[in-house]
């Protein structure tokens, strides 16, 4: 992937960025931590009572004392269990809420980022951030962070207890802790880098998966399924290598984390045992010390995977904020202006220039064009001349590089985005339908206006009939997850959407491209009705579409080369004639070159190589 390698942050600095999300739920998280801490203390008190049993009732043959102390242990045990439940119950809601809120915020933020961002970022990388990375963060908050804090505290408290109980033995354990902490720190940094690489590779893999799923028809048509599988496998293998590096690092850490306490335990037995023999230590104290170290065994061992999970979470947080930190370059103006009501819909482009970030040259090099209120202007130009780019500038899907676009003499950049886009509606050559009901697709959430308004829009777009024929009418789910519609049906729905929005300015990018000749006439009639009352800029490829317009503008070399009526331009501008004059003289081709003409001879051996 071509994304820049981010600077390596320390885990803690990365995790600190979770703060805004944790703050609202910190009470419950603290409560959970507290419950865990008390549970831990209750757990730690058990060995102390055991020591009392050994040195007291057992040494003095006092059955009543034994029963009493055992009851004390039972009470501590029940408390510990109850607090463990409390801790987990407290943590369930806030952490899942944090995950959901972070996801919604990411999603929300992404929706407002400019097209330039979306063209650059593979959506798999975005998806992996929204799902796998957030799962990692949730797991960190729910299990890891609390365990990490509490286990470190447990170890510290345990060490203090040990030192107080038997200073010489406690010191021994403290000595062991020093190299352990150093090793864990060193390891954590190394592991963090590998974890980040693994997550990026997961993002790349997700992109491949997404393309293979969405482009399945092309892959099938060319029989490239096996090839796609090979490419996918190569990426999956690279990910496996990274994961194995993680495994190796983790295994080494585990070995150290297990070996050090065990060796300390052996030393403790030695020093303690001989001290008991020498009479400087009671047997009960030795048993208590050994039991405490056994209690500390799990908190110590757990540090290995807790640190690994912390690294994962830190890398996930960094990845999350990488996207969240991208600024919304297309934002509401600081001091927005309002349009005078009613909106007249005068659209003017003045010296509009545009070039795509990173592209060599400008697509638009000073476009001047005026569309008067209620007028329809057709935009004609060769493939790749920048027509679609121009249509994207009006609703501010991208901003002009220089020059300006005004609606009713107000620069579109001075209007609140929501207002601008309610005044300007757009429909594109590639009508995107959402996996939702027909009603939702047309009204796009503005359901207050009721079904009648939706039906009216459908009627104008000549879509009412086929919608009525759908199995659940307006409720039928269409789009990817629902019923498949034909190109013409999709375009009519996109048109109905634009009609429903009831805009003052309508920008249509080749609205008739996917219609067959039969339907085209119908939609054309519908369009004519729609265009009567609004200002419209219509990108056109065909004479029939051009004829919907009052005037035609020819876009060539990034400028408006000519403006006039269809017949004027046809008569006066050769370039226009080339673009729009009927293609055919009506005489079909006669010669049939016959079999085996210019088709390349198949070379069987070369084909074998391909297989």
């Amino acid at each position, binding site marked *: 992937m071509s994304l820049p390698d981010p600077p390596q942050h320390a885990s803690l600095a990365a995790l600190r960025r979770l703060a805004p999300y944790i703050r609202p739920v910190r009470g419950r998280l603290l409560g959970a931590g507290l419950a865990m801490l008390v549970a831990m203390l209750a757990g730690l008190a*058990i060995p102390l009572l055991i020591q009392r049993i050994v040195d007291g*009732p057992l040494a003095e043959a006092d059955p009543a004392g034994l029963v009493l102390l055992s009851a004390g242990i039972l009470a501590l045990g029940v408390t510990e*269990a109850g607090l463990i*439940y409390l801790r987990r119950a407290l943590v369930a809601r806030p952490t899942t809420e944090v995950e959901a809120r972070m996801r919604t915020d990411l999603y929300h933020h992404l929706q407002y980022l400019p097209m330039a961002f979306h063209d650059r970022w593979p959506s798999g990388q975005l998806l992996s951030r929204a799902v796998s990375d957030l799962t990692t963060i949730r797991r960190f908050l729910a299990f890891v962070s609390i*365990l990490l804090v509490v286990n470190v505290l447990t170890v510290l408290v345990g060490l203090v207890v040990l030192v107080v109980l038997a200073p010489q033995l406690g010191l021994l354990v403290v000595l062991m802790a020093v190299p352990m902490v150093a090793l864990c720190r060193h390891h954590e940094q190394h592991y963090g880098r590998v974890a980040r690489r693994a997550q990026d590779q997961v993002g790349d893999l997700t992109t491949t998966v997404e393309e293979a799923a969405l482009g399945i028809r092309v892959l099938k048509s060319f029989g490239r399924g096996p090839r796609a599988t090979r490419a996918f496998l190569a990426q999956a293998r690279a990910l496996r290598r990274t994961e194995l590096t993680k495994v190796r690092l983790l295994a080494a850490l585990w070995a150290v984390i297990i070996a050090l306490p065990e060796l300390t335990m052996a030393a403790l037995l030695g020093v303690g045992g001989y001290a008991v023999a020498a009479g400087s230590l009671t047997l009960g104290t030795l048993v208590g010390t050994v039991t405490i170290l056994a209690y500390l065994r799990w908190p110590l061992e757990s540090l290995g995977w807790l640190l690994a999970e912390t690294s994962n979470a830190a890398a996930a947080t960094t990845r999350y904020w990488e996207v969240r930190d991208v600024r919304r370059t297309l934002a509401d103006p600081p001091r927005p202006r309002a349009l005078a009501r009613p909106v007249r819909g005068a659209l003017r482009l003045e010296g509009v220039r545009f070039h795509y970030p990173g592209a060599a040259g400008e697509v638009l090099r000073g476009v001047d064009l005026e569309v008067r209120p209620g007028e329809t202007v057709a935009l004609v130009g060769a493939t790749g001349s920048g027509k679609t780019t121009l249509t994207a500038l009006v609703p501010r899907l991208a901003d002009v590089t220089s020059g300006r676009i005004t609606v009713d003499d107000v620069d579109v950049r001075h209007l609140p985005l929501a207002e601008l886009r309610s005044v300007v509606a757009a429909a594109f050559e590639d009508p995107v339908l959402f996996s939702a009901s027909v009603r939702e697709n047309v009204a796009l959430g503005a359901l207050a206006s009721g079904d009648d308004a939706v039906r009216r829009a459908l009627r104008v777009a000549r879509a009412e009939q086929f919608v009525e024929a759908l199995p659940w009418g307006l409720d039928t789910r269409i789009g990817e997850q629902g019923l498949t519609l034909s190109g013409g049906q999709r375009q009519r729905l996109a048109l109905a959407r634009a009609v429903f929005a009831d805009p003052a300015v309508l920008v249509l990018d080749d609205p008739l491209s996917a219609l067959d000749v039969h339907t*085209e006439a119908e939609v054309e009639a519908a369009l004519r009705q729609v265009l009567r009352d609004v200002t419209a800029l219509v990108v056109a490829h065909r004479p029939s579409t051009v004829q919907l317009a009052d005037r035609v503008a020819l876009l060539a070399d990034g400028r408006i080369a000519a403006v006039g009526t269809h017949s004027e331009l046809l008569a006066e501008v050769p370039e226009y004639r080339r673009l729009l004059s009927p293609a055919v003289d009506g005489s079909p081709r006669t010669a049939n070159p016959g079999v085996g*003409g210019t088709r390349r001879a198949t070379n069987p051996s070369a084909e074998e*190589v391909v297989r």
Partner: protein
Amino acid sequence: MTTPEEQWRGVATEDLERIDTATGLRLAARSRRLLGSLLRPHLRRVAVAAGLLVVDQAALLAGPLLIAAAIDRGIPAALAGRPGPLAWCIVGYAVAGAGDALLVRAFLRLSGRIGQDVLLDLRERVFAQIQRLSLAFHERYTSGRVISRLTSDLDSLQDLLDEGLDGFFVSLLSIVGIGTMLLVLDVPLGLVALTGFVPLVLLTRWYLRRSQHAYRGTRTWVARVIVQFVETMNGIRAVQAFRRESRNSALMDELSGTFAEANRVALGLIARFTATVRLVGNVSIAAVLLLGGLRVLDGSLELGALAAFVLYLRRFYDPLDQLAMFANSYSSAAAALEKISGVLEEHPTVVDPPRPRALPSPVRGEVTFAGVRFGYGSGPPVLPGLDLVLPAGQTVALVGPTGAGKSTVARLLARFYDPVAGEVRLDGVDLRWVAEAELRRAVVLVTQESFLFSGSVADNIALGSPSAARTDVVEAARAVGADEFIRALPEGYDTDVGKRGARLSAGQRQLVSFARALLADPAVLVLDEATALLDIPTERAAAAALRTVLAGRTALIIAHRLSTVLAADRVLVLADGVLVEDGPPDELVTGTGPFAALHSAWRAALA
């Protein structure tokens, strides 16, 4: 069930299905079968890993025994002036500890490798299966769900393999090992301690059953979150242009919230599970201490043995959090495996023949539809019975109103579907008998969709023939009139097309996919509105290119523009799946049939 969520989504057939108990059991069995088949190739290594764990557990169990020996034998001996036995106990303990560390390292490396191999194997199986399955599956199953199977569902399996396997083995071995040890140390006290295991087993069974259900919920909802996310990002232009952002955010909030709720249910189960397990553990420690203490008092048990007992019990109940995380990932992975195994058990409806028949070499390209009947799923027939012969080398235009079945004819010819009855033949061979690879070389379908993959322009054209040299790629681009604009791009043929080809205009994307088809050099080319988005001169250039490149190929062209249609050798008019007109365009134009009417309507539109 009409939550607000259901309302905006609208209704589709798959919602009407429900999972009952019997289906649930069948699903569980299916995912267990899959897990078995994934582990089978690694049985030897799994056995080695299990062996390592057994030895490791032995080393672990030796610890408390040695401590007991040190207290009961070593210290009295040292008190009596013999330091030897205590020294042996200590050395033994150190060796066992170091051995434990090394064994754990070896085990983690081995089990990590097994886990990654299993995961890679499963990734390959699912991806290859997705590629193998017919279009009928994809249209029913949809890309969003395919994506979530291959991403988040596999993630949850990875989580299980990462942190679950050793936890599972360890707790299994702990039960057996510690149980035996306790009985060896002292039978009556051991029996008391072991009674605690009974509720533990019952509890685990309860938890696994309940959490299975909870995690099925999380898998379903995460898939919906993914679908919403992917759709929004792929349709971002429309989203922004129609101010759907806030509505979308509300929908995502709802989906994500329901997903969170499903997770919360699962977490609540874990809370109850772990707390109860800990309770059982603590109660048995108290009971053991009381009964054991009484026995120490009457002299039937040694103090060291009692200490060992308590240590063993604590060790068993200690890594609870890890056990809970294992149970957690297991349930999550099991739910994911159910969904994945469902995909893996799908059968392609369009099957590669076991004993394919060879096409003549070179392929001539004669296409025959013989009594072809077809309908989608259980829907009404689209083609009631089509008979049609396209002689080799002929360029045929197919016209007709929306829904007439034009695209269906194209899809049958490319064998995206098989006919319900009748045969589609290429050079006299039924397509069902042609090997997939050979068929794809002979027949290529280009649709209006023109999907571009991330990569350079050249990569995208070369998809038509991956072994093609750069000169061939350029030649194909030149033939369709795409060379000029490609050269004008910042890095020419090596320019990255951006996500879904965003760097190019729709017309340019169509030219690239057209060049891709030419480079594939098929005997039969099927164009389904492949030039609809081109402007007239470009289309004219493409049509002129077609005239040369189609020479010697059979071509079936579905086009809305009469200019393209008139350039064909022959025109077929399709209405409701039936051929209503068939002949050379110049003859049909002068006739009185539907095509003549179409033509005059078109002429009128131009005037």
